[in-house]
């Protein structure tokens, strides 16, 4: 801690920070552009000038850039100094010289950091009377729009894109007053984190194209605190809605999970919510795939309960992409003995093993932010950027943080970004990745292109080197032994080694190997960590809840032990081969499907109930850390579309259960369901604490979903009726569908629908909601951990796979894929444009055996034609296929690929 004197007042600040960050953390406003809490200082824009004095007796002082000056003890500065103010006003005037007067048509307007700073410095008259330089813009792909005329040359874009996220195709071109930020040639921005440019850019150079199609100002959007549903990371998001559709996804700051950044799947993958083919009403079908007939709600509920009552046995199939509450209500409806998690058996076994390892290996699971402090990482059988997007960015920071350690030794503070970058060129903390093909982290990692069994064997070997009590791997070849030794040396030399693995390979032995390494590290008393990546938004939650596997449910139906099935938000055809699902569904007389998407499963339903997506409902998810997080309804679909009968699945299932008991379907609220779920499942007890209940108030007020400037509410429904109905009432949460309510920052709180503070309209307004800028939300970061490390040690696993022997079969190696590998976001248009063309990766030997070359095409049965991609070091005997390409394909399944013969297959 340090004492600094600002304009005659004394303040206690964190002395490790720079003056700008320290002053912003105190709530003092200093304008800035190039500085960013996650990216540190470069002193490029000259906007944050303050006067600094040497000591009490110094009455002259000198102007310094506050972002480049340490907040050392007894520092004396003046923000209000007249010359400093004049300097800042001149800087903004000069940055604005070429900036167009296009705020009314600029999509940044209303959440623009440049607008905020220009107003803050008082620059309100343009004196420049000459031609402005103009630019040609680039087409940068489906996510990002480019408007270079607006650029103020702060360099934040390239600092984020290249230095922070490891991109290589964006650059700063030219010199002096002629600098251009763009790609070296027009084309799609390649980084999977490019979407963050829309928030990192202080003005409207990089804007969200998906928002552009359906543009609404920030102040006219309705928001709620939500949680991304597109992978197991659990990033906090703030979706904005207008006229009954989601218009954009903005990052919602979380000090431990996502910080300021999201991946592009999460930011641009929301389009499935807005699809025009979504089911809006209950439907009934006599035969599978028939055109359905719509039903009234009461009729549908009566007919479904009636048929279910007459059935012999009802199986409930849950879903790892649905909330805990919805899954719990399904389990209540069908009974614990008839409930399946909806997860394929091998994946479920892996999930259970991951829960167990997280508890019993003795290593703690760090939060994503804590990952950045680990100084050696081994990734065993995962491609984190593809399987958990944002997590890859955390791991990159861990590798890069070596330069901070180097800087610390010679007195360069962690915020001095450019100095550290120069100091630590090409020097990284060790990052070892055992994964068969290229990853986004390869530039800062050492990668070992191994087959799944070999990855496991390598892992077991590493564990044995760390702790000789761990089982020895037989017949280990010398090369692998050397690799294992290098990895073990790096992990043992580190203060905080980290082991990362997960379910992507659906391999028990890979996970067991990761568990052995974690245990070995724990036994050697390392302050290490273990991170296990799950596949879907609520995979961890479903595993904690427990239930039968999807395979079991299919067998019960196929073998006639049940004649009815209720499927919750789950497309079974994504998980098991079509034939197997067809067989099972064909034996079920009644097939009730609740979903918000028209999936292949829904097309075979006898009854369909229109479920809420994350945007229209509330619920709880558990992320890969084991953190339970609540997501809140953004908008009420029935308000603008009175014909829609969309409800949370838990509400539908509660009504069905009441109907089965011949009770009136009394309404139920979220808190009751959450409490019932927590009570029924000991592992989930903590979930109630994940967020405040419906009765939570601040200053006696509900929390507003809409900014106070929200306009046009009385008119937006006038096409339906000129009399404005009462706004929807929210009985489930403390949030109001209104601008009325609390939306301030002076009371610490965790659940922030949107960040706005007087004078701060841009995402930088999050600075006002944190305990210190870049720290934690002032009310604590949302969510609660449900999985805790237990004392003691588990026994080492002895399940070491044998060394691979040459076989003639080719097996599927399904590769997680950020764009296309997730069922729901793959239905969003901009994501579809970013999906890889169908490819199959083969090694040269296998390609030769199939008589194909790089660029030829292969098919699997009636699959689309897949272009052969020959990779020199790809493991023999495996065919690499991106997830989502062939639904229902099992990891490791034997394949018979055939050459396409003449014409289109």
């Amino acid at each position, binding site marked *: 801690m340090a004492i600094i004197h600002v304009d005659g007042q004394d303040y206690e600040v964190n002395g490790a920070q720079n003056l700008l960050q320290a002053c912003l953390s105190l709530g003092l406003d200093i304008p800035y552009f190039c500085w960013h809490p996650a990216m540190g200082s470069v002193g490029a824009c000259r906007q944050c000038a303050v006067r600094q004095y040497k000591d009490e007796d110094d009455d002259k002082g000198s102007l310094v850039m506050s972002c480049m000056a340490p907040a050392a003890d007894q520092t004396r500065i003046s923000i209000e100094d007249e010359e400093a103010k004049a300097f800042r006003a001149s800087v903004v005037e000069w940055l604005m010289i070429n900036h167009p007067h296009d705020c009314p048509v600029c999509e940044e307007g209303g959440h623009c950091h440049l607008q905020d700073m220009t107003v803050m410095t008082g620059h309100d008259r343009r004196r420049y009377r000459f031609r402005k330089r103009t630019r040609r813009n680039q087409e940068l792909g489906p996510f990002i729009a480019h408007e270079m005329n607006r650029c103020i040359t702060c360099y934040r874009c390239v600092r984020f894109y290249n230095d922070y996220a490891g991109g290589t195709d*964006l650059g700063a071109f030219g*010199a002096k007053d002629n600098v251009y930020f763009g790609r*070296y040639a027009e084309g*799609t921005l390649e980084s999977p984190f490019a979407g963050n440019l829309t928030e990192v850019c202080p003005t409207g150079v990089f804007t969200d194209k998906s928002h552009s199609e359906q543009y609404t100002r920030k102040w006219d959007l309705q928001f709620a605190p939500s949680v991304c549903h597109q992978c197991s990371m659990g990033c906090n998001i703030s979706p904005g809605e207008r006229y009954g559709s989601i218009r954009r996804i903005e990052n919602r700051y979380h000090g431990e999970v996502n910080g300021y950044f999201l991946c592009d799947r999460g930011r641009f993958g929301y389009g499935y919510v807005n699809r025009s083919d979504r089911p809006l009403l209950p439907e009934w079908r006599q035969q599978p795939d028939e055109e359905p007939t719509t039903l009234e709600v009461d009729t549908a509920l009566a007919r479904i309960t009636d048929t279910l009552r007459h059935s012999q046995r009802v199986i409930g199939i849950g879903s790892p992409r649905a909330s805990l509450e919805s899954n719990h209500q399904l389990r209540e409806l069908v009974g614990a003995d008839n409930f399946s998690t909806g997860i394929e058996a091998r994946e479920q076994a892996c999930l259970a093993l991951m829960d167990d390892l997280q508890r019993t290996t003795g290593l703690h699971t760090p939060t994503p932010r804590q990952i950045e402090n680990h100084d050696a990482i081994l990734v065993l059988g995962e491609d984190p950027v593809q399987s958990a997007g944002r997590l890859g960015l955390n791991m990159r920071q861990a590798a890069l943080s070596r330069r901070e350690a180097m800087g610390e030794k010679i007195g360069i503070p962690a915020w001095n970004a450019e100095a550290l970058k120069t100091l630590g060129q090409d020097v990284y903390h060790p990052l070892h990745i055992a994964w068969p093909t290229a990853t986004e982290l390869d530039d800062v990692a050492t990668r070992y292109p191994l087959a799944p069994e070999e990855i496991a064997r390598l892992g077991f070997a590493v564990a044995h080197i760390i702790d000789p009590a761990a089982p020895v791997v037989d017949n280990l070849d010398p090369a692998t032994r050397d690799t294992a030794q290098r990895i073990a040396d790096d992990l043992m030399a580190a203060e905080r080694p980290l082991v990362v693995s997960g379910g992507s390979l659906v391999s028990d032995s890979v996970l067991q190997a990761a568990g052995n390494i974690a245990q070995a590290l724990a036994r050697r008393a390392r302050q290490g960590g273990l991170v296990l990546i799950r596949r879907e938004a609520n995979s961890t939650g479903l595993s904690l809840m427990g239930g039968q596997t999807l395979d079991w449910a299919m067998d019960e139906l196929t073998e006639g032990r049940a004649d009815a099935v209720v499927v919750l938000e789950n497309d079974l055809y994504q998980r098991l081969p079509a034939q197997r699902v067809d067989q099972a569904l064909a034996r079920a007389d009644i097939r009730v499907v609740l979903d918000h998407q028209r999936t292949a499963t829904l097309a075979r339903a006898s009854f369909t109930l229109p479920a809420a997506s994350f945007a229209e409902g509330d619920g709880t998810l558990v992320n890969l850390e084991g953190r339970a997080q609540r997501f809140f309804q953004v908008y009420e679909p029935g308000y603008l579309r009175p014909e829609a009968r969309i409800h949370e699945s838990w509400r539908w299932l509660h009504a069905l259960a009441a109907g089965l008991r011949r009770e009136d379907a009394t309404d139920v609220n979220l808190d009751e369901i959450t409490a019932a779920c927590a009570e029924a499942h000991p592992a989930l007890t903590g979930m109630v604490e994940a967020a405040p209940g419906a009765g939570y108030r601040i200053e006696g007020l509900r929390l507003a979903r809409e900014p106070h400037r929200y306009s046009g509410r009385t008119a937006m429904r006038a096409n339906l009726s000129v009399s404005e109905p009462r706004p929807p009432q929210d009985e489930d949460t403390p949030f109001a569908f209104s601008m009325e309510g609390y939306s301030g920052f002076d009371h610490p709180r965790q659940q922030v629908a949107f960040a706005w503070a007087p004078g701060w309209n841009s995402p930088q307004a999050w600075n006002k909601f944190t305990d210190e800028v870049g720290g934690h939300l002032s009310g604590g970061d949302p969510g609660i951990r449900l999985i805790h490390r237990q004392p003691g040690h588990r026994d080492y696993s002895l399940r070491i796979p044998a060394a691979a022997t040459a076989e003639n079969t080719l097996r599927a190696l399904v590769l*997680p894929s950020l764009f296309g590998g997730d069922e729901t976001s793959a239905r969003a248009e901009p994501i579809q444009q970013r999906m*890889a063309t169908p490819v199959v990766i083969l090694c040269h030997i296998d390609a030769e055996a199939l008589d194909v070359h790089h660029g030829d095409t292969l098919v699997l049965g009636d699959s689309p034609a897949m272009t052969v991609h020959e990779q020199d070091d790809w493991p023999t005997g495996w065919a690499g296929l991106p997830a989502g390409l062939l639904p229902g394909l099992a990891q490791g399944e034997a394949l018979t690929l055939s050459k396409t013969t003449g014409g289109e297959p």
Partner: protein
Amino acid sequence: MAEPVSTSTLIGSDGFELHPADETAILEQLKHYEQPQAACIDALKIVQRRHGWVPDDAIPAIARVLGIGPGAVEGVATFYSLIFRQPVGRHVVLVCDSSSCFLTGFDELKQALVNELGVDYGGTTSDNRFTLLPVCCLGACDGAPALMIDNDTYGPVTPDDLPRLLEGYP
């Protein structure tokens, strides 16, 4: 899974191909530096030496050889005014406009060059013989006003010297 680096679909190829000898020369330069990006200027000069300028498609080609992103190469290639991004004539005339030359007759010299060549800054004579460009300093203040043709520095130069000087560059 990682996708192959996408190339522009909207701008046509300019047909540039990296000469094998140049690739070898760039790889040789790489050995002199700790970081591959440090060899970027040398690589650009190697390409410029052969082609007279650096075509757009040379950028990804150099990036590939150096093993760095094309954005970084383009950044260097657009920063330095002596890396030419448009075709230039057989000979490049650089006329110095720094303070010493400015004080000692730069204006007259430049005007005489424009008259002699019939092109202004950035222009190339119709016979493709000369390209005229300004340069911020030649380090030849003792001989101001100075100019440079290809690798030869001249100064002080008067307008009357020009015909004879230019004669030497057919």
